[in-house]
């Protein structure tokens, strides 16, 4: 635990499980940027979309405990890399801000749980944090190697930019493209960038979930992308894990790397293959190895 930490990191369940590469690459990137970060102690589940489907008040209280823990730690900024976590924490704040009844419930809950009342905790997403706090210019300056000529589709998914718009514009987000360009990657014009991947549907109504992901992959391919870049563990999982099945179903030769923004940025800043979790990809392994394990002397330094 670093006492000087500026951000409290809220991993949520995915970043400790299927999205572990996101955690690895985010923490590596922050280390390379010399940004101090510490994990929120004893954090609990955000509730995702499931809890809200069972009880709204409980869902809001569940999310609130995490914000109160941040308050307790004396920190202002909670970094929530998962789109669903980001939205759920933000949503609990909105419910408290706009509905006095909900604010009362939260107040009573915090009192009974022995937690501090909320003051000014901010929920942040790594994309917004990289763009606003670090800045595109600084990322460009710190870039030590470039994926020259590699074309990528930046894919935001849904809950990072909708319904709240602090992370980027809900209709036409561009910040990921700007960051990619700064670190030497060529973003393509990907019109499906905020179209939903189906979230947990791949696990429930499997055929429908896979179909949504097929459309996203196919469009990226059609636009000439060689890889998709995501900012959500569920988007990454959905797009990455079912490509073999999609190949079998459609006969189309889709084998595309699905990377986290923090893997691409972290690599540009000098991060290593394994510390960025690049060995954890399921699809597009060959391209990933080709791009990210170039020998030292062959690297293109800026």
């Amino acid at each position, binding site marked *: 635990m670093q006492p000087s930490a500026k951000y409290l990191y809220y991993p949520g369940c995915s970043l*400790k499980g299927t999205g572990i590469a996101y955690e690895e690459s985010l923490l590596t990137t922050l280390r390379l940027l010399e940004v101090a970060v510490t994990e929120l102690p004893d954090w609990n589940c955000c509730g995702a979309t499931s809890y809200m*489907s069972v009880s709204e008040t409980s869902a809001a209280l569940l999310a609130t405990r995490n914000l109160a823990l941040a308050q307790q730690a004396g920190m202002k900024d909670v970094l929530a890399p998962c789109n669903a976590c980001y939205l759920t924490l933000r949503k609990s704040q909105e419910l408290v801000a706009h509905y006095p009844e909900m604010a009362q419930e939260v107040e009573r809950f915090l009192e009974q749980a022995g937690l501090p009342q909320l003051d000014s905790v901010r929920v942040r997403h790594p994309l917004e944090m990289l763009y606003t706090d670090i800045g595109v210019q600084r990322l460009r300056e710190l870039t030590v190697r470039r994926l020259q000529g590699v074309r990528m589709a930046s894919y935001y998914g849904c809950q990072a930019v909708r319904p709240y718009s602090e992370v980027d514009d809900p209709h036409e987000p561009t910040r990921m493209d700007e960051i990619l360009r700064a670190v030497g990657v060529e973003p393509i014009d990907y019109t499906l960038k905020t179209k939903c991947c189906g979230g947990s549907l791949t696990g429930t109504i499997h055929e429908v979930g896979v179909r949504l992901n097929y459309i996203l992959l196919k469009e990226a391919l059609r636009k000439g992308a060689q890889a998709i870049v995501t900012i959500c563990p569920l988007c990454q999982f959905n797009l990455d894990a079912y490509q073999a099945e999609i190949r079998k179903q459609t006969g189309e030769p889709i084998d595309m790397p699905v990377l986290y923004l923090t893997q691409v940025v972290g690599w540009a800043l000098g991060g290593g293959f394994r510390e960025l979790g690049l060995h954890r990809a399921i699809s597009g392994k060959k391209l990933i190895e080709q791009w990210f394990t170039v020998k030292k002397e062959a690297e293109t330094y800026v």
Partner: protein
Amino acid sequence: MERQIRYQREADLEWARQFTKHPGSERLLSCIQCGTCSGTCPLSIYMDLTPRQVIALVREGFREDALRSKTIWLCASCYSCSVECPQKIGITDIMYRLKREAIRSNLYPKRFPIPVLAREFCEMVRRHGRNSEFWVVFRMALRSNPFALFSMARTGWHLWRTGRLSLRKERIRRINELQVIPTVSKEVD
């Protein structure tokens, strides 16, 4: 014709009016039936009723038709409809509210995996404070369609091989802080 008459008898306008008192649904009655929600919904082609139709049913008080629809469960909460709605109706929040009422009134399609997942997920979080991805998916499959486990095995193998599948049960230390939730919250929703 017969169906039409039955419908009108079933309509519960008071229910629709009550509905507008909840977060996100305040502007429900101002729906102009433009269909933007259905047009922008990535899942509407897989739904039995489009979001526009569900909103129409709710607005006119056809409670059971709305609650029994598979549409509310197919909603992935991507908020496209809410952001695009020209009348600023919180359609996603309305879908959530319908999900909650369907679960509470036991009107959801039996063995349909999505409500089963929601309940298993909540149960796990209530007990441990955290969700363990593998276990929640495993329990959902057991209770909805155990055969799905065979097709999931392949994905599981990929995840296992890349170190992305954890069998550990996650839990928080101060679970007592979460256990006050049911006593505090009035569960009005």
